[in-house]
Structure formats: structure tokens, C-alpha cells
């Protein structure tokens, strides 16, 4: 009985050095290239918007977090919400509306439900849905990419004083010396004018659209990085894309005039950003194997239905929010059988 000590421990004995702040940090790293590309495309005003929205998201989290606020901003999840939200807003969105969106995202979408891990819906999308309902005109006002003076001037709408209507954007766009800018996103162009944007532009992101939703190729690359590091479930974006193809493909075969081909549906709008970075939100997505598949297919299907048959030209946001809301039900229906338990008798 001398000298030998046996230490008793309970399982698990092996620990992976992965915790929430680490995952969040890597998601931020994965978002940074998209942010950089977005600033390159749309200029100084977009950089201001991204910084403002992210700072507001952090401040809201700190303020509403109460005593735990100090700790909860350090895990980095509020930064991600802020970045994602900013990337889904139009590049020349007024800063003050960006502040409203960020407060709604963190306040209504996250803290109200109890903070990180408790939110049933994706906070960034809650923020965007709020400003979509509050400011329908500003959220559908786009600027052309690669404007001539994008690094020397800021769109007047960005700096609109709080509570006032943004004005003078048309003159600013005229100063950008861009050929034939119609003020619509590829999806809008298709829906209202029947024009299909070339795939090359969709892949590189040189189209009008929300700040960070346009460069499809870059988003996939950043998403793949996270998938390889296993910080997101690769089945979800895959299922979303499969859902889009399964819904849009047959329609395209049926009537190629009315319905665009699946490639266009996949690469336009916010689908890539939504599929890789929003639908994969660990809190709002199911964990069961079959549930993930149903969830992803549901998002893809709803997106196509809203885009082709709805009043709006883009539907990824609502599709993901609806699927988030359906997640508890999906998980309930797809509970795997407990290993060793008897099969349920009919």
C-alpha cells in the first residue's frame, strides 16, 4: 500500500482538441477569402458595411449576454453571424439598416432563445428576413461589380443618415462607367426579362447581387476546406444541391423556355453561400443521417419552388429558415434504431 496510486477516471478517455471557439475560428478563416473578393468586387462601401454589421453583431451579443456576454463574444460565433449577414446584404445597403439587421439577427434570432446552441433558426438569416420585411426597396437595390470608382468613393446609399431614405444612387452608378447595368441580379434578370447570365460570370461572381453571394467557385472552395477539416457536414450542401437539381432538372426538360437549366439555378443567387455556410449551421440542422438528407433536399426543393413560382426572384433565405423550423420534426421522424433494441412490431 505504499507509493502506488491508481487514478480512476470515467470515459471518454481520448479527447479531440476541437472546441467551439476552434471551429468558429476556422469558419471565420473560410469566410475571409469571400469577404476579400466581395470588397474587391464592390469596393469601399461594402467593406464599411461588413465591418459595421460585424461590430454591431458583437456589441449586441455583448450587451444582451448580460454577465455571460464577455465570454460569449469570445467564442467567435457572433463574428460569423455578422460576417454571414453582411455577405447576404446588398453591397450598397445603408449602414444604418445594416445595424438594424445585425441587432435583429443577434437579438431576435439568437439571444432571445438563450444564445449559442439554442437558436432554432439561423441568426444571420433571421436578421436578413427582418430587413427584407422592413426595407423591401433597399434590400433589392443592387450595384454593378467592378465599378470604376469603387475604391475612391462610397455609394451615397451606404452613408444614408439613420432613419432616412437612401438617395442619389443612380447618379453614383452612372459614374462607375459600367456597360449596360440593369440593376438586377442574374435571377431577377431571368425572372423578369428572360435573360440568362453567362456561366463564367456566375462562377467568378462578376454579377450584381448580395455582397458575398456571387462568386460561386470561391464559396465552394472555402466550403470544401471546412468540409475536409470536418467542421461542416458535407452531406448537407450536397443534399441541397441534389434537391435543386432534382427539382429544376425535370422542369427544364419539360419546358426549357420557361425554366432555366439546373446549372444556372445552382450557381446564381445565394444558393452556394446558403448551402455551404448557412444550411450547415450546426444548431439549426438535423444530426440524424436520414434527417440530414431530407433537410438538404427540402431546402433545394423549396428554393426552386420559390424562385420559379413565387413572387420573389430569390428564395434560398426562406427555404433555409423553413427547413430550420422543420428540423425538430425531421429529427423526430428519423431517429435511428438504438443498437440492439428490438424492431418495432407492426
Amino acid at each position, binding site marked *: 500500500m505504499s507509493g502506488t496510486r491508481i487514478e480512476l477516471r470515467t470515459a471518454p478517455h481520448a479527447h479531440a482538441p476541437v472546441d467551439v471557439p476552434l471551429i468558429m475560428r476556422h469558419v471565420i478563416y473560410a469566410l475571409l477569402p469571400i469577404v476579400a473578393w466581395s470588397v474587391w468586387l464592390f469596393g469601399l462601401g461594402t467593406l464599411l458595411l461588413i465591418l459595421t454589421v460585424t461590430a454591431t453583431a458583437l456589441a449586441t451579443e455583448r450587451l444582451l449576454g448580460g454577465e455571460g456576454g464577455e465570454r460569449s463574444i469570445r467564442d467567435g460565433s457572433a463574428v460569423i453571424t455578422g460576417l454571414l449577414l453582411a455577405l447576404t446584404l446588398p453591397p450598397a445597403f445603408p449602414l444604418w*439598416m445594416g445595424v438594424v439587421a445585425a441587432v435583429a439577427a443577434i437579438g*431576435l434570432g439568437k439571444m432571445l432563445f438563450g444564445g449559442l446552441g439554442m437558436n432554432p433558426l439561423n441568426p444571420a438569416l433571421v436578421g436578413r428576413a*427582418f430587413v427584407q*420585411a*422592413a*426595407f*423591401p426597396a*433597399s434590400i433589392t437595390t443592387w450595384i454593378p461589380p467592378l465599378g470604376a470608382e469603387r475604391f475612391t468613393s462610397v455609394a451615397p446609399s451606404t452613408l*444614408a443618415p439613420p*432613419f*432616412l*431614405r*437612401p*438617395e442619389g444612387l443612380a447618379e453614383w452608378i452612372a459614374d462607375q462607367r459600367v456597360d449596360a447595368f440593369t440593376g438586377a441580379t442574374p435571377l431577377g434578370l431571368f425572372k423578369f426579362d428572360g435573360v440568362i447570365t453567362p456561366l463564367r460570370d456566375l462562377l467568378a461572381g462578376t454579377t450584381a447581387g448580395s455582397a458575398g453571394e456571387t462568386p460561386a467557385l470561391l464559396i465552394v472552395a472555402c466550403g470544401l476546406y471546412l468540409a475536409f477539416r470536418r467542421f461542416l457536414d458535407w452531406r448537407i450542401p450536397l443534399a441541397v444541391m441534389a434537391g435543386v437539381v432534382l427539382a429544376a432538372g425535370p422542369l427544364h426538360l419539360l419546358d426549357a423556355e420557361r425554366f432555366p437549366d439546373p446549372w444556372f439555378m445552382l450557381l446564381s443567387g445565394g444558393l452556394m453561400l446558403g448551402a455551404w455556410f448557412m444550411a450547415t449551421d450546426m444548431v439549426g440542422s438535423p444530426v440524424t443521417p436520414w434527417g440530414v438528407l431530407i433537410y438538404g433536399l427540402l431546402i433545394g426543393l423549396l428554393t426552386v419552388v420559390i424562385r420559379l413560382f413565387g413572387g420573389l426572384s430569390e428564395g434560398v433565405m426562406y427555404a433555409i429558415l423553413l427547413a430550420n423550423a422543420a428540423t425538430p420534426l425531421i429529427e423526430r421522424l428519423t431517429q435511428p434504431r438504438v443498437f440492439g433494441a428490438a424492431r418495432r412490431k407492426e
Partner: protein
Amino acid sequence: MNGESPKPVTWETFAAGLWRENPVFVMLLGMCPVLAVTNSAVNALAMGLATTFVLVASGLLVSLLRAAIPKQVRIATYIVIIATFVTIVDYTIQAISLDLYNALGAFIQLIVVNCIILGRAEAYASRNRPLPAVVNALGMGVGFTFALLCLGGVRELLGAGSLFGVALFGDRFEPWVVMLLPPGGFLVLGGWLLLFAWLRRRRGQAVSVEGGTCHTIR
């Protein structure tokens, strides 16, 4: 709450409806008009005053007739009394301002089924003398109007940039469209409930309502 205890009319008789038993922020009654007609402060005020009038008048009449009303048919009797006063309000508003009448729509007639009024008649007016019944109904009415104004004010301020129809931000104001839509009603109501719950907790008041007054009709 047993029969004819002659309670003295105190400040508390009146103030119960303002704060401690506020029909909207504490009892969460009458949600239908609260959410539906509060898209402007004027609508809210008109709805509040109309409801207050019906509350006071029906409270008085129920209290006067409380000995004559058979227990078995009391609810039906209350409804008839309330409906009478609602009809008066209905025609009066129509005569004063047709615009207002159209803005409030069916919600004036729906005052008949407003559970605050029926609740007051059942839980207070039918068990008290006319004076306390009227004072209590007045307090409830003022509390209801206050709550409606809280919602209507915020919604009109953000949704139209004005208050009681007076523009406050000039013509460059960007309206928050969502505030005038149904979701805005729910959001603002939630915000006020949060604020008042927080205030009550800070003052250390338990959220309890005087025995029986609102448990009967919730």
C-alpha cells in the same frame, strides 16, 4: 370574492387595471384588437376609448342588475348588455368619423366578445356595488388604452415616421414596412411584454393576480 362584501373604493380599485392587473401586459387578454388595430396611434386611442366606454357602461349596468340576473343565464345577459353598448359605440364612431370606422373595421363589433369586458362583468361588476364597479372598469379601460397606445405609438413611429398623424422625421423618412404588418404587431407586443416583465421583476413584484379575478376567464 364572496357576494356582497362592501369594499371601500380606494385608489387601488382604480389602479389595479393600470399596472398590477393590466389587461394586456399582465393578463394577456384581448389580444385580437391589441394586435390588429394598433398600426397607428389614432386607431389605438379610438379602440381604447371605445372599449373603455363599453367597459364602464356595462360594468355599471351589470352591477345595478346583479341581484336581478339569474345565475344560470348570467353570461347571456352580460353579452346582451355589452352588445347594447357596443352598438351605441359602433354608430357613434360611424357618425363622428367614417375614416376611423373603416380603419377599425370589424374590431368595433368584436368588442362584444372582448374577454376583458366579459371578465370584468363576471369577476367584478356582478359582485360589487356600482361605484367600485365603475371605478374598476375605468381603471381597466385606461390600462387597456395605455397598452394599445404603447403598441400603436411604436408601430406608427417606426412604420410611418409619425405620431398621431404628425410627421416627425420629414419626408425623407424610410418607413419600416414590417411594423405596419402583422409581424410588427407581434414583435412590438413581445418587446413591451419583455420590458414590463423586466420592470416588474426589478420592483420585486410577483406576477400574481388577485385571487379569482382573471383565473376564471383566461
